[in-house]
């Protein structure tokens, strides 16, 4: 039963991103944040500091991998820290692309 819920969560779209302006929205269209990093950093070059997070050596902030966050978790994260850094990949299951 629990497994079924997890599978359902993973295939449900939770976020929308516009690759042109890097604006992130919830599935219902509410604006979350505009992704912007003033430092040229690559996810693969960062060191893991948690199960779904990595440490950016450029600014020493924790970057959250959104692939494993639910809509509620993401909203909660940004409500507590609107400047929280996120990593989103175009091909992850819980993101859909808008133009």
């Amino acid at each position: 039963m629990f497994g079924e819920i997890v599978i359902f969560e993973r295939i449900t779209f939770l976020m929308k991103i516009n690759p042109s302006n890097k604006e992130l929205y919830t599935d219902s269209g509410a604006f979350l944040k505009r992704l912007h990093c003033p430092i040229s950093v690559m996810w693969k070059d960062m060191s893991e500091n948690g199960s779904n997070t990595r440490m950016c050596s450029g600014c020493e902030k924790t970057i959250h991998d959104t692939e494993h966050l639910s809509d509620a978790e993401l909203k909660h994260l940004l409500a507590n820290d609107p400047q929280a850094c996120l990593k989103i990949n175009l091909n992850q299951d819980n993101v859909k692309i808008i133009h």
Partner: protein
Amino acid sequence: MLFKKLLNIFRTKTNSHIIKGEITCTECGLVYDNTLGFFKKEANECPDCQYIKILTDKSFDEMSDNLRVIKTIRGERAIQAAKDMGLKLLELKAEVSDEFKVKYKKLQHRKTGEIITIGDFREGNGSEWKTLVNWTSRNPSKFFSPYAAYVIPKDLKKGECVLINDVITNHVSGRWNQGDVYRLSKSEAIWTGEDFYIDVSSYAIGDFIG
């Protein structure tokens, strides 16, 4: 003031004959063909005037992310105006590659009539939506003129890293596994003394971080 002077030099006669798809520029009076969408719908200045204005726009003098910002101008009138101002230019051919494409599908809600555009194959549409335009792709990049130039600060040193907000040359910023190919429009670059080396990785699409 300088902008007004430049306009007087390059002013075009107003054409009173206006048809659908044409917009009259409030600055120079030029009636501009907008059928290709080079104007924003709400814009009231022609692209020529918008780029001439960049030449005197002080906001470009501010650093961005600790980098100097390079002005890009497009169109023969802006380039000529820059030359008349004695500015140093790096002129480049501006042609969009056919490689860039984004796909889309247009849907209309059967009850409300609302029209939406989706861009992701994974986004399902229920029976309440009917297809207006089935999956197709377009090249989202278009330039109103094949003439473009970077304005080079006279004190720009070889090896200096800068920020270009409107890249002229064609570079792929990212590919999506659904087939979309995105053009790099903004990038960090290094002045080689003769040209800019575009650091594609600085604004590449793939993993979005921020």
